[in-house]
């Protein structure tokens, strides 16, 4: 019973993440890759994403400080971050990355600053939500991902 509830909770949380646009179909692709040989694949990818994206955001921050109005450089860094968002299905964060790149294209430094704050905010929110989701999955046990209820 307990296991069932946790899996249901995880499923509900995931659905809400999709409904609110935090995640897109690509996240499902990642979960689909998980199998018995790699039972923690989703968690590993999520963890890797947040570690790597934190690094990329630091790069962007430093570039904006040390290379003012170097829009090509800022854009190149953001291109990498956006690519990571694409790969994990981080939809809202990806959109903010796009806004940032558009501002680079317009050479709008103020706009870039604002976009970057939004990117950071989305990053933080997504991190919280995915950490909760992963936590629920862990507690629910090594059964299949919470796409359907019931214990193994």
């Amino acid at each position: 019973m307990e296991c069932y509830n946790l899996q249901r909770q995880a499923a509900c949380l995931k659905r809400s993440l999709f409904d609110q646009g935090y995640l897109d179909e690509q996240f499902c692709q990642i979960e689909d890759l998980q199998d018995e040989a790699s039972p923690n694949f989703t968690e590993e990818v999520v963890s890797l994403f947040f570690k790597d994206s934190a690094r990329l955001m630091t790069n962007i921050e430093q570039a904006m400080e040390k290379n003012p109005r170097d829009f090509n450089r800022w854009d190149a860094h953001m291109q990498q971050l956006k690519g990571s968002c694409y790969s994990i299905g981080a939809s809202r964060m990806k959109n903010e990355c796009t806004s940032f790149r558009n501002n680079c294209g317009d050479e709008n430094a103020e706009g870039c600053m604002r976009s970057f704050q939004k990117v950071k905010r989305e990053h933080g929110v997504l991190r919280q939500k995915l950490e909760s989701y992963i936590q629920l999955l862990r507690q629910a046990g090594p059964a299949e991902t919470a796409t359907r209820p019931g214990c193994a």
Partner: protein
Amino acid sequence: MTVVDAESRFHVLAVDDSIIDRKLIEMLLKNSSYQVTTVDSGSKALELLGLRDEAAESSPPSSSSPDHQEIDVNLIITDYCMPGMTGYDLLKRVKGSSSLKDIPVVIMSSENVPARINRCLEDGAEEFFLKPVKLADMKKLKSHLLKKQQPRKCQPQIQPEPEQRLEAPPTQPAHRPEEALAEVTADGATTAVSDCNGSNKRKAAAMEQQEGLTPPESTKPRLSNSSLAVET
């Protein structure tokens, strides 16, 4: 010998500077029963393949240094936008090498730029995948691997099973054009700002001219490792 056995011997070299994408492509390939080696740069890929990054191709094979690792690969799948050597540069280097030119090369990119796609395909890439790459894309690799089956000493001769459906050779310039349009409209006009090709293209062209022919591969030591991940 069944096709499944043959697939499990196919060795794919995946090149991507993004650690996330390396993890994903590795999993995608493993799920499709390929052996995988991942590297994070074009120059590391060339090193593994037995080509130096600089124009030092004229050195005889016996001068290979002891720590110089070389592997047999059946297919190279590479990201397009990478710092230093781009996927396109890597493609040109591979296709310009007498020992490597028959290895099929597939390019991946998260940006849909038709001119870029066409250029890669015209210059020898077998396929161009839009990222994020999906499991369904892995199925497209099989036909290229079977088509390019060579009688190399490590690889068995495989005849395709009669019931096996081979994909049609890629004649169209771009994959998933309907998705391509969606990508462009979602992004707006962002690609004009940074073309990751930049000066690397000129550098690659210059290096191409300097590269001599590599000697036949039979004298080179070869290691066939499974799931060897080379990362920084």
